[in-house]
């Protein structure tokens, strides 16, 4: 199974390495077996099963290839749990719709839980049982591509371009899935972080919705009274990290400069995080923030203990009874007039292990064109990546989604901004926790420059500088 992942040009080096690996493995097994038989000459029979079992299982013994199905080619699609149970249902019935329409290709839909998603995909790829295609985390495609497990879809893009459909993808979305000269996955939805506020609390305090950072800080201060705080964020999970990016991008900064090099200590970043640090010093940030999960922060917001928080587009749906009290700020202007927030282009990727790349691509194209029901019936709360779907009245008639599409999507930036494209290191940055440690440092009132320097050191080791 390791062969499958290897590029053909590296064949001999690879074979040598396999041999080396085999030799080491053999030595280790021998030692272990000896440990087990250590001192019992009369125990030869007990030792046998120990030594025999691993041999059967050695990875070099390739499992017999499954015979291809006689009539229809199977395509296995793993879709993450992107929404409520309706979403899973909508996804399943879409796949059935595909199966009814297409001859020769039969797709299966498997809903994949988010908890431990990375281990799920790693074990699947590592053991040669990856699906044909899947959705996944924002930078999953590029990271697995880098490790030789994802198939580039340049031909799919060419096909889309020739049919004129490439223009249907929102500006920048296709570009944001390029790495090393290849497009590694197809966009389907955009996730983004937005500043939501409690209109009722604003009204009660007589505060106007802020339009820039100065007003934002003043508003948060004015809204802090008794057991109510102006601003809350999760710090103990990804939401803290997201806030870091929101602030840096809103001030024209970012972890990387335009040529894609690390630029953590640039003055815009320092200024952005100092802004948050000042708000913490003002006492207008909920003191539980550093240890809150995103849901804890939502709870504080929902109860009315906090007036502003950053969250995803589906935020208001969580509080059906409060929904009239929840509103969205227009994009804030930073001190230098910048606007910006973090967004991710979620995507569908094809695995190199697929035995039927053509059928898989056929399914991918169909899925991309026909997935509107994931929103209209599946209640997905992200923003569709295709303009034709985003133009549907379902989105345009809802003032909030319309506002997000018109005002926020254009200023959304990727984790790798200000650099263009994406790279495997972004997955490490998002996963490693360095950015949420940074957020927790600042929420606990630690020194901005020192905290940033600490983060910079970790980031440098991640990037390999």
């Amino acid at each position, binding site marked *: *199974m390791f062969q499958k992942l290897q590029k053909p040009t590296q064949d001999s080096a690879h074979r040598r390495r396999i041999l080396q690996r085999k030799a080491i493995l053999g030595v280790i097994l021998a030692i272990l077996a000896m*440990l*087990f*038989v*250590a*001192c*019992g000459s009369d*125990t030869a029979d*007990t030792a046998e099963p120990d030594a025999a079992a691993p041999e*059967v*299982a050695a*990875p070099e*013994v390739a*499992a017999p290839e499954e015979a291809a199905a006689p009539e229809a080619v199977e395509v296995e699609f793993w879709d*993450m*749990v*992107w*929404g*409520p*149970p309706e*979403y899973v249902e909508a996804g399943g019935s879409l796949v059935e719709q595909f199966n009814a329409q297409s001859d020769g290709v039969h797709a299966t839909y*498997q*809903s994949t*839980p*988010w*908890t*431990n998603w990375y*281990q*799920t995909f*790693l*074990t699947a790829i*590592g*053991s*040669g*049982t990856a699906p044909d295609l899947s959705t996944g985390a924002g930078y999953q495609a590029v990271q697995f591509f880098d490790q030789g497990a994802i198939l580039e879809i340049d031909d799919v893009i060419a096909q889309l371009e020739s049919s004129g459909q490439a223009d249907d993808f929102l500006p920048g979305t296709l570009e944001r899935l390029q790495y090393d000269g290849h497009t590694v996955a197809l966009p389907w939805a955009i996730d983004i972080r937005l500043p939501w506020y409690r209109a009722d609390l604003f009204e009660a305090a007589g505060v106007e919705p802020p339009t820039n950072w100065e007003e934002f800080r003043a508003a948060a201060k004015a809204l802090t009274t008794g057991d109510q705080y102006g601003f809350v964020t999760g710090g103990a999970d990804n939401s803290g990290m997201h806030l870091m990016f929101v602030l840096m991008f809103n001030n024209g900064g970012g972890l990387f400069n335009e040529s894609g090099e690390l630029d953590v200590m640039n003055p815009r970043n320092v200024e952005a995080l100092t802004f948050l640090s000042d708000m913490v010093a003002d006492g207008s940030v909920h003191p539980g923030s550093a240890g809150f999960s995103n*849901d804890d922060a*939502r*709870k504080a917001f*929902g*109860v*009315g*203990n906090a007036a502003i928080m950053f969250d*995803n587009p*589906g935020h208001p749906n*969580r*509080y*059906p*009874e*409060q929904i009239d009290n929840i509103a969205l700020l227009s994009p804030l202007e930073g001190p230098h007039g910048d606007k910006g927030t973090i967004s991710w282009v979620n995507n569908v990727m094809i695995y190199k292990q697929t035995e039927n790349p053509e059928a898989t691509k056929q399914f991918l194209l169909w899925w991309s064109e026909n997935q509107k029901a994931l929103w209209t019936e599946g209640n997905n*709360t992200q923003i569709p990546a295709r303009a034709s779907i985003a133009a549907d009245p379902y989105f345009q008639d809802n003032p909030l989604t319309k506002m997000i599409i018109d005002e926020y999507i254009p200023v959304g930036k990727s984790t790798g901004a200000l650099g263009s494209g994406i790279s495997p290191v972004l997955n490490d940055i998002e996963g490693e926790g360095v950015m949420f440690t940074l957020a927790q440092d600042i929420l606990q009132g630690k020194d901005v420059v020192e905290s940033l320097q600490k983060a910079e050191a970790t980031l440098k080791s991640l990037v390999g500088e």
Partner: protein
Amino acid sequence: MTYNRDRNKRRKQLRRWGLFAATLAIALVINLPVITMILNSFRTTEEILTSSTIVPTNPSLVNYNYVSLNTSFWSYFANSIFVVGSATLLVIMAAALAGYALSRFRSRVITIYSRGLLLVQMFPLVLALIPLFILLRNLKLVNTPYSVILLYTVVGLPFATWMFKAFFDGIPRELEEAALIDGASRLRAFGLVVLPLAGPAMAAVSIFTFLFSYNEYLVATIFLRSKDLYTIPVGIASFMQQFETDWGSLMAAATMAMVPTFVMFLFVQKYMMYGAVGSGVKG
């Protein structure tokens, strides 16, 4: 005389009820997180996210309805029972034999085996996932309950072996010796004389093995791919979506998984008392 005995009896009675009250109070305090779970299972996720009280203001059964009617909870439950039950059976069979060997025989191999059991506990499972997956795929066990059964068996084995050893240590060997003198083989002596006495130990081992594997999530989520094989912990995790978690249903499902287990334990709890490990590890 009679008066005194009565008073003594009453005092004893009073003491017992005093102890009962104290224990109950401690049990309530210790189980506060459990009570939190149960209370929240009676409110919707919206209410959980917007209410500032601890006790539900308008308790409802909506989560329970949803979980039992609109999800496959009962199939998760049946899967859990099957997986854990089979693992428990296997553990009892293998560990009774090994525990007997550890109890009655001494040799360096046996000592090494006994220490090896400890080593097995130390190896972190996370690291073993991919090789395990390759192994079980070659055995054609992936996406079958047997993969999980096998792994839970191995996880439960060491502790069960020590428990059996301690139990057999307490059974006088004169019993087997009598059988041996009558001409029985060692195997027969073990099977016909010692094993029938081991009922309580088996019960204790079942309880522990059950507890070790009933809530396991990582292994189950990696090796059980299709929804109709999910065990309870995996089923519960599917209430956690990308952008939100249905806490109400999750709490209801967890409560529903707890109650039958609780009731079952009421019946078998007296066997927990046979679960002494003794100095089994030393071999």
